């Protein structure tokens, strides 16, 4: 029989407000096994924990029940407390009387009644607890960063800085991501390239960092500290180590007419290309769908002009297998497709563009060499209309847009408007908005300058329709403040498209068994307290894959993720979760049901000699669980027909004891 101590937490008034904590402590006194029961204002506080430690010592408790907030909150805390008092940490059970009781029930009587029952269930369970000792597994001291945008770059640099090797996997031919496509950055208006490209170079030159560009994660196995990852290095038909990036091939390539992804298809690139001048790695890549040599075996010009002899038409996709201790997801974002937004005539007119396209259009390295022109006729636009929240914050248009706020649009639109007015004072600039959201250091000041100093015409209201007419774009909009209908003849319309997680995130999440929210943003282990960790141990989140972010936020989160990774890789061993499956060999039939449902391949079979009840011996096939691989889901326990398979910490007997206690 256990000697159980019960500790009821008031959590200030959070629990005590709707639960009579004294009554709970009193009621649980008479439960079997309970030898001590008390309540205190804040059990998780130092003083509270001391009460627990003291009681363990004085009443030599063998198990404790803490009636408090969710185990997801403080189970770890109280386990440490128990351990500090010499009790096995797994002799602790939590009765969740806050999140699942005091916070959801209004009146004292109901709350108290339920709290007592939850307490009884926890006591019933702890009575059946047994001390558990976690297994240990080594840590592979290497990190994988998926995505080579500013988030990935910063995370990689910080991890490498701490002395751990890092691999970056980037699906594009170069790292740099979205930031590389930007012109200037708010609110300081310094040029994106000027602050990003040096970091890209650092990455290239850091001997701790390997860049797998033009590559994708193919498969992820293993678990925290011991991930086995397969990376597919797509054939770029150019030997990376030999190519000097001189660009001769790019010059000579006859197949020039291919939409240039980097400039969002606003101009063309050859079949063999280097995305942009500061690309890292600065290596050419052949687009197999465009290259005549690869398609029809004719041409081969690039091979001939390549002094270094880097061209290799026979190159194949290559699978690289590597072990990692930690994985950082930095898959970033994309503007949503404007296809469905006919009202803005995005498909009808070349002069309706997205903000990212506008960035390229105003970028010195862009299709128009930084000269602001209309894509349709190359003329200088005199009237520009910026439309905000296109696809953002639309609960109505959820099927084509997003319900959330994309966060960055207000600021970059202000930036665009300001820069336009600055460079081209003769241009009329309208910005249509629902609200202008400018929290953040120097953000509001920045926006007000756009209005006050640069005379940008901000109109509260949405654009109803854009109709191409002649060389004009007729913009119908409503001014909600003056409550007037506006008709503007615009030369250029810029849509602040909502942003969404990159499409590659969903399959990746499945590979990583990391959870996502309904918008396919990765969910964090805790929205406030563990914002850069995914619930899956060893997987961390950096940048916009977790939610819309601007550059400063992204960089700071990237650093945070890096520090978590460093913390993990600094350990030599990880103590695993001891709540894993184990099979009673005497009852095991060796039928393989458990093996079939195990998602981790943690179960294998061995032939063992057994002494049967009739005193004969028999060789039987029985299951054995690999404690390092088992993650403790329990699928096997139900698949097992004889009940030989059970789960430590969540044993059949324990769960049934809880059921009984609850159903009394």
């Amino acid at each position: 029989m256990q000697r159980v101590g019960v500790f009821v937490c008031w959590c200030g008034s959070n629990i005590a407000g709707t639960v009579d904590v004294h009554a709970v402590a009193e009621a649980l006194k008479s439960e079997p096994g309970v030898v001590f029961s008390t309540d205190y204002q804040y059990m998780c506080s130092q003083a509270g924990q001391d009460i627990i430690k003291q009681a363990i010592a004085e009443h030599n408790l063998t198990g404790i029940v803490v009636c408090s907030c969710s185990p997801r909150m403080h189970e770890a805390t109280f386990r440490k407390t128990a351990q500090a008092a010499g009790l096995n940490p797994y002799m602790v059970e939590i009765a969740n009387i806050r999140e699942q009781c005091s916070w959801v029930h209004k009146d004292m009587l109901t709350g108290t009644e339920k709290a007592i029952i939850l307490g009884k269930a926890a006591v019933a369970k702890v009575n059946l607890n047994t001390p558990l000792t976690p297994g240990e597994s080594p840590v592979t001291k290497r990190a994988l960063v998926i995505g080579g945008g500013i988030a990935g770059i910063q995370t990689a640099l910080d991890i490498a800085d701490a002395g751990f090797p890092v691999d970056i996997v980037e699906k594009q031919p170069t790292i740099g991501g979205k930031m590389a496509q930007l012109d200037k950055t708010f609110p300081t208006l310094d040029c994106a390239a000027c602050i990003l490209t040096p970091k890209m170079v650092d990455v290239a030159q850091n001997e701790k960092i390997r860049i797998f560009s033009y590559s994708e994660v193919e498969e992820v196995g293993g678990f925290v500290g011991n991930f086995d990852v397969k990376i597919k290095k797509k054939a770029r038909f150019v030997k990376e180590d030999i190519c000097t990036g001189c660009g001769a091939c790019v010059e000579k390539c006859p197949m020039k007419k291919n939409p240039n992804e980097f400039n969002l298809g606003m101009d063309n690139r050859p079949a063999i290309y280097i995305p942009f001048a500061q690309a890292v790695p600065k290596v050419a890549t052949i687009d197999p769908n465009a290259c005549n040599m690869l398609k029809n075996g004719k041409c081969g010009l690039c091979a001939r002009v390549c002094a270094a002899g880097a061209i290799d038409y026979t190159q194949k996709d290559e699978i690289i297998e590597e072990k990692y201790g930690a994985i950082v997801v930095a898959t970033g974002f994309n503007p949503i497709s404007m296809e469905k937004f006919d009202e803005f005539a995005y498909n009808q007119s070349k002069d309706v563009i997205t903000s990212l396209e506008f960035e390229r259009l105003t970028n010195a390295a862009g299709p128009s060499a930084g000269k602001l022109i209309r894509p349709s006729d190359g003329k200088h636009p005199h009237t520009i209309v910026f439309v905000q929240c296109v696809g953002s914050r639309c609960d109505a248009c959820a099927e084509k847009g997003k319900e959330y706020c994309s966060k960055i649009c207000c600021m970059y639109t202000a930036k665009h408007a300001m820069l336009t007015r600055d460079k081209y004072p003769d241009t009329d600039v309208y910005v249509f908005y629902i609200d202008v959201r400018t929290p953040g250091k120097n953000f509001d000041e920045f926006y007000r300058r756009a209005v006050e100093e640069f005379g940008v015409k901000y109109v509260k209201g949405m654009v109803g329709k854009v109709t191409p007419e002649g060389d004009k774009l007729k913009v119908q909009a409503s001014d909600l403040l003056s409550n007037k209908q506006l008709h503007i003849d615009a030369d250029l319309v810029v849509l602040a498209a909502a942003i969404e997680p990159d499409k590659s995130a969903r399959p990746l999440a499945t590979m990583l068994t990391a959870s996502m929210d309904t918008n396919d943003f990765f969910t964090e282990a805790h929205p406030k307290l563990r914002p850069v960790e995914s619930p899956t141990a060893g997987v961390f989140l950096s940048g916009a894959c977790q939610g819309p972010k601007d550059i400063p936020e992204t960089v700071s989160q990237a650093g945070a993720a890096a520090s978590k990774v460093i913390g993990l890789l600094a350990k030599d061993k990880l103590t695993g979760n001891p709540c894993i499956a184990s099979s009673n060999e005497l009852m095991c039939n060796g039928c393989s049901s458990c093996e079939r449902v195990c998602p981790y391949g943690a179960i294998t079979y061995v032939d063992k000699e057994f002494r049967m009840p009739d005193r004969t011996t028999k060789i039987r096939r029985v299951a054995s669980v690999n404690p390092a691989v088992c993650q403790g889901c329990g699928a096997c326990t139900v698949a097992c027909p004889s009940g030989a398979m059970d789960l430590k910490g969540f044993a059949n007997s324990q769960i049934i004891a809880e059921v009984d206690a609850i159903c009394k």
Partner: protein
Amino acid sequence: MRKVSLDSINKVFGKISESNKLYLPVDGSDGVAVYTEWSEGKEWSNALNTVRSPKDFFFPQVENLMEFKTSGKNIELVDIRDEKEDFVIFGVRACDVRSFDILDRVFLSDPVDSFYASRREHGIIVSVACSKPSETCFCTTFGIDATNPAGDVTAWKTEDSVYFKANTEKGEAFMKKIEDLTEECDDSAVTAQKEKIAKIMEKLPLANLSADAFGGGKTDTFFNAPEWDELSATCLGCGTCTFVCPTCQCYDIKDFNTGNGVIRYRCWDSCMYSEFTKMAHGNNRISQKERFRQRFMHKLVYYPENNEGIFGCVGCGRCLAKCPISMNIVKVMKKIGGNKSE
């Protein structure tokens, strides 16, 4: 001897059930006879016998002994005996009547089983003579006269009437109750039936099955007989034979945790089960062969040894009809006892 016409037998039943619960074989939905409490509309089955023997009335499969109620750390003991009032079992065959004697010798000898005892006290047995024995019958082997069963009252059922004869005080009292529904008569019809059935009994395939080879003191003769291996080789180890058997009397006592206390109950157990009388060291009988042997040795050797040579089997034939693999005491007796009745 008194009689009542078959058409008005339900009046008799009605009369009795005014004062006592009356149980008799009634054909169930699946056409199999089951002892059922009589009520208007229920008809007395013509079946030779029920699958579940009437031993259930005195030794039910599950019987609550007592209850411990717990509140907090206090325990309160509650008496939940329910065997309180008189009841009548009607239509018990000769073999099953004998089974009560066999059970009595177990439960009524010291220490007396008070639960069984008081059920026996409260039970009134109206037996009925067999008129259409089955090929599986072998009660004669154990000296039972199927045409003249014992019991508090004996009944004979002919084409048109039912005849009654009281054998005990309880029986007399029973007859009193139905006096004005029955009429005094001679026993000619009964005698006639007895003779007729006796002839059929002689023709039964197992008529001359003999148990003479068995009995007390024969342990050494049979315990190590090589035939046990072969006989038990395909025994499934289920409890069918023991649970349909009218004389099997093994039970287990278990506690059921109700959440608010414990109900201590006893339930039938079977020596055929691998868990039977399992102890800390394991099982006494480690293989199915030993468990199988135990059951038959008990009925044919151990029981008679302790009970003036009375066998622990009544030849009702239930196990012959119900064993999933058709292994049974007759096959055992013939194989082991070397008695091949051609």
